[in-house]
């Protein structure tokens, strides 16, 4: 049963399929904004499938272990994240460990990108790596404050506890501190996903793929897949934290959950299409400045009971 959870539902397979579909949705909407038709629905699957079948080039100066292990660990960590979320949300099962562990696992893919690209040993990757590191440092600060806000509010450290609290006393989003926290968390998610305006680490036009510049074939596919899984889990995570989680109760429950999910994905896509890329120091300033202040305000409001 455990293996089923991890590999099929709600773990790897389910998360990957939904994640890739979400990626496609994102690309399609972007294309429509540009007055283009956009890719067909299976595009993301084809991309990943193709990458899996391609040769992996090892750059000359690469440290092999780090370079090759990074995508695998990133994939494993994001699968874990998806599974934990799914268990808590759909199957009402708790798991050992709490939101702190969860937060830690969320950071792992980014750290793996840093390690992987740093061990590639080429200048472009190194720049991408350092940018990713700065970005990680940037967005984790407000993110953890918001998390703390949610934890205080729900008086529980586990995902299940947070969901239960929201079932009892309404979603956290429906309060002032909740709204502010949600906005901050959404932007952090945007950065975690590496989307415009926070895509400096893998800027296609400047760094030619940046952190992923030297990755090719299956290794790149691993990263893409892990990104896709994150693209699925992070919106779900936001729903869990702020919007009462996903309960697969009656028929309407599923629809409502789907609506919430699509809304958040749409928000992310809109943000990505209406903004230019921020320079990395601007992004860090943005997170440490405005976002942190907002997060602290949310926290104070929460303490005041708003």
């Amino acid at each position, binding site marked *: 049963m455990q293996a089923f959870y991890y590999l099929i539902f709600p773990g790897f397979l389910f998360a990957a399929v939904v994640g890739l579909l979400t990626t496609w949705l994102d690309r399609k909407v972007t*294309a429509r904004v540009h007055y*283009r*038709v956009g890719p067909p629905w*299976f*595009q993301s699957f084809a*991309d990943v499938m*193709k990458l899996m079948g*391609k040769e992996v080039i090892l750059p000359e100066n690469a440290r092999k272990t780090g370079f090759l292990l990074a995508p695998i660990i990133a994939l494993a960590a994001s699968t874990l994240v998806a599974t934990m979320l799914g268990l808590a949300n759909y199957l009402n099962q708790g798991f050992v460990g709490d939101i702190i562990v969860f937060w830690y696992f969320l950071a792992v893919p980014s750290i793996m990108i840093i390690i992987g690209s740093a061990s590639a040993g080429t200048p472009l990757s190194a720049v991408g790596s350092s940018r990713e590191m700065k970005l990680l440092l940037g967005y984790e600060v407000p993110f953890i404050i918001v998390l703390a806000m949610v934890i205080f509010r729900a008086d529980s450290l586990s995902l299940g506890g947070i969901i239960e609290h929201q079932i009892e006393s309404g979603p956290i989003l429906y309060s002032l501190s909740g709204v502010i926290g949600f906005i901050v968390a959404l932007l952090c998610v945007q950065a975690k996903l590496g989307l415009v305006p926070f895509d400096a680490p893998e800027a296609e036009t400047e760094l030619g793929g940046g952190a992923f510049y030297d*990755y*090719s074939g299956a290794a790149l596919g691993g990263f893409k897949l892990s990104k896709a899984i994150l693209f699925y889990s992070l919106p779900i995570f936001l729903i869990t934290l702020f919007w009462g989680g996903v309960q697969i109760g009656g028929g309407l429950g599923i629809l409502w959950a789907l609506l919430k999910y699509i809304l958040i994905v749409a928000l992310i896509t809109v943000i990505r299409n209406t903004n230019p890329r921020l320079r990395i120091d601007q992004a860090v300033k943005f997170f440490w400045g405005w976002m942190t202040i907002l997060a602290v305000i949310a926290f104070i409001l929460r303490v005041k009971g708003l």
Partner: protein
Amino acid sequence: MGLKTAALKKSIWVFHVACSPCNNCDIEILDLLTPRFDVERFGIVLVGSPRHADALLITGVANTHVTPRLIETYRATAKPCVCFLFGACASHGNFFRGSYNVPRRIDEIIREEDPNAIIVYIPGCPPKPEAMIAGVVKALSVL
């Protein structure tokens, strides 16, 4: 046809290598991205790193300045990869064949680097964007 090939056919990532073209081929390639042609419909995406590419779109002739760059780029591309020699310049040398600054043809350079390279020639000066799409389709039919 395996799943791998099927997937490859649906998702071609191309990388644009401008050797020393007259710009026209490059403009036509850019045209591919704009609303009229929109190659993303077919899963064709321009990427920024040769390592991600499945296909190299090579335009122009290889003059002495860019020849080493071309070889470098070809080496950096993950195989299997298809080289599209876009335009009369790349496929044959156009008028510039025999010029003092154009020592060798591009396909010669690539063949020297890798005798098994898959090379697709798209003649025309410049080939129309449709020709590039058609060229990709033809190349896929032999994969």
